[in-house]
């Protein structure tokens, strides 16, 4: 079947299988920043924004995204300028292997779009579906707080 959706601001018409998951379609289309960690909604590595909300793309049927706006990690930076959340993750040392990072960044963007000034417990809850095995989650929390500060101040980067 064919479907039309918007990925990172670009309108795309894709041919998909009706049973395919959004994760697999996005990767096939070259959005390799969307990672597969479990295929079961347990780890969050595949998180993308689906009409503004972070979801596990390994669960969502691609066909469900008909007409939807999808944002992946590849759609965040403007040219060489990183999104403040990306910038904050790097500055705070929150990236180790980087495999869970795209999902965590997308969940953070969802959080900050609704709650520009989250408390630490709110950050932890918002990212509770994103598993990381390299870090102790300490520096990600710091990074989200840092990004929130920058974004409140209207800065694009630190």
């Amino acid at each position, binding site marked *: 079947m064919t479907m039309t959706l918007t990925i990172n601001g670009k309108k795309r018409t894709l041919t998909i299988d009706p049973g395919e998951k959004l994760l697999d379609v996005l990767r096939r289309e070259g959005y390799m920043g969307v990672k*597969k960690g479990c295929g079961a909604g347990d780890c969050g590595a595949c998180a993308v924004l689906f009409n503004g909300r972070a979801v596990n793309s390994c669960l969502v049927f691609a066909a469900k995204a008909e007409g939807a706006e999808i944002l992946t990690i590849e759609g965040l930076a403007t040219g060489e300028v990183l999104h403040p959340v990306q910038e904050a993750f790097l500055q705070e040392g929150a990236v180790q*292997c980087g*495999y869970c990072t795209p999902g965590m960044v997308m969940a953070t963007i969802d959080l900050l779009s609704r709650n520009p000034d989250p408390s630490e417990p709110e950050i932890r809850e918002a990212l509770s579906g994103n*598993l990381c095995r*390299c870090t*102790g989650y300490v520096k990600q929390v710091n990074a989200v707080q840092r990004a929130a500060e920058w974004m409140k101040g209207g800065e694009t980067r630190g």
Partner: protein
Amino acid sequence: MADRPKRFVTVGKNLRKVDGTALITGKPEFVADLQLPNTLHVKILGSPYAHARITSIDVRDAEAMPGVVCVLTHLNTPATRHTTAGQGYPEPSPYDTRMFENKVRFVGDRVAAVAAESEAIAEAALKVIRVDYEELPAVLAIDEARVDGAPVIHDEADSTGIYDAGRNIVADVDIDVGDVAAGFAESDEIVEMTCETQYAQHTPIETHVVLSYLDSANRLVLRTSTQVPFHVRRIVAQTLDIPMQQIRVIKPRIGGGFGTKQEILLEDIVGLITLRTGQPALISLSRQEEFAASRTRHPMRVRVKLGANSDGRLNAIEMEATSNTGAYGSHGLTVLANTGSKTLPLYNKAPHAHFYGQAIYTNLPVGGAYRGYGATQGYYPLEMAMDELAVRLNMDPIDLRTLNHIRVGETSPIFEKLGEGREGVSQTVKSCELPRCIEIGAERIGWAKKRGKRLKIGPWVHGVGMSIMMQGSGIPEIDMAAATIKMNEDGSFNLLIGATDLGTGSDTILAQIAAEVLGVPLTKMLVTSSDTDYTPFDVGAYASSTTYVSGMAVQKAAEQVRDQIRAVAAPLLKAEAERLELRDDAVHDPSGDQVSLARVCQRAMYETDQFQIGATASCVPTESPPPFLANFAEVAVNTETGKVKVVHYVAAVDCGVAINPHMAEGQMEGAIVNGIGYALTEEMILSSKGRVRNPSFFDYKIPGMLDVPPMDIILVESYEPTGPMGAKSVGEIGINGPIPTIANAIYDAVGVRLTETPFTPERVLNAMKAVSG
């Protein structure tokens, strides 16, 4: 070796990862991110039985299925015995594995592999492979392995390196210092403790994944998620019986390893498929396959017996370990040996020590390297026994440790007696800030005011516990790392390293070391890591070796390059080469004159006495300086449900000089949280038939954001004179801490000793009931 410089320029700074921008923008840097045309998708058929002989296998229907290109079984693959353990040659693990065999030894063991045009077709083809099994009696617990009449798991004639195959014993270790029997006889107090650890898994978020293809010269390229690219090349050549020069291994960005990728698990299969078909082949384990058929931490039963004088001085330590290696002996001997060799030297004041034990086969999931590598299993009973000894002697557990732990200028006979599955290497400790670690940690947790207080808040009772430990920095006189640095005429440098960054940040810290020596900012170091065609040899990322061993190779290479630069610059500056200094992208003479590095390189390349400024240097360490760690935890135990909550965790670690403090902290934070999961929630639950019942993150619970206590990671720096820039390695040590520390804190809170991990609410509650009757 140079003294500690007054100040570092690049080292010691929280510089950003050199690969950070690529990772944060989602660049296609990982194995499976490379899409090649005509790639075959590979799936493996796993054994449904724990122990069985394959009496017949019929793959005709699978081969006939449209889209299926290649099916591998024991009937059409090389039968070379090898080990999957990615260790240096000759590997200390037995050669007890074939690609495929007519015998399967655990649920999930390889039976066949199918390569097809899509993953769906490959999966469908697995279902039509007809296998007849003759089910054999299985060994499903460590106590069943060595009894008379037990099934023999490796009854084949051609396996080698097994200690006693007929009794399912992979390895046997027995070393003595002094006479422990006499030591115990002289002791005023004896404490004995036996602990059992569970099956647990590494669970990197990226599972094992390999892509293979042929290059333009028809050489086999393996792009693989590995910690050991050079061992992959060697072992795949051996397994497939092809010349090693036909293989190139590329390690791109890796989504975590923690030991499980120190294993040659899939490279042989996709490699053979590509060689047979000429097509690229990709295998990527599902999470379920990863749980069922990759590698685990060796479950162990470890008994520790301590004898001490009434003043707390240890007389004798005995440790007996029984390690379950599962169906194959990968890392069986060395993990067992490390259980003693990485723990007992800590208490070098005891004149008598005895370590012995065996690693045994079972028809259960296969053990492998896992961060901590046996030390984790050993520190659990050791540090709990120390806690108990302190209670019996009415001493503060801190004072008991302080009295007995190793210090600068001291050695332990264990270093020499017990090494990597063989004799070790003697060494004297040259840096140890453990006393300060203990002091700072105790202060931070509030030890004096919390210990023994049993603060009650509703059903929760609080307690504090502590433990200390050491690990090592690489494997002395075995590990080898090399680094190549070459200079470009714009003043930049290529740093080519076989060292394997698997998310640890080693590319960055190794570049920081080189940049420090060469007086350039990090941006001038262009890092290429781990390509067997282009980077020099390195054993890979394991045994806490990278910072110390690979770091020293980088430092030496950088120093040689620095000396070449000085020699070229000397005539330009009309100064003696020895008096020139490299900093700020330039060579400076004492008078204040300078010449840019770019200028120096241009001269070398285009003008006078032309040559390539560059060097390759190697490091084979002669010792393995231990990092030291003091752990403190405050826990709350719910007396209604048995739930244990870690309220606060403090880890003060002596890592030598932290090359990049953020990254050193990151190693500690990650290891401790992994250890907390191992202590409290993580457990592979096996059925009575040996099947993993919880092969998913849905039911194998690793810590998430909500499960992490407030943590204080304190880097207590020392200067390790044998290390690069004074550094030691801290990749592993942190993971050893949570089990004994939390166990001791639980004891402080509710008075029970938990001798089985993980400390699930149910186990805690049962232990409390057993104590209260």
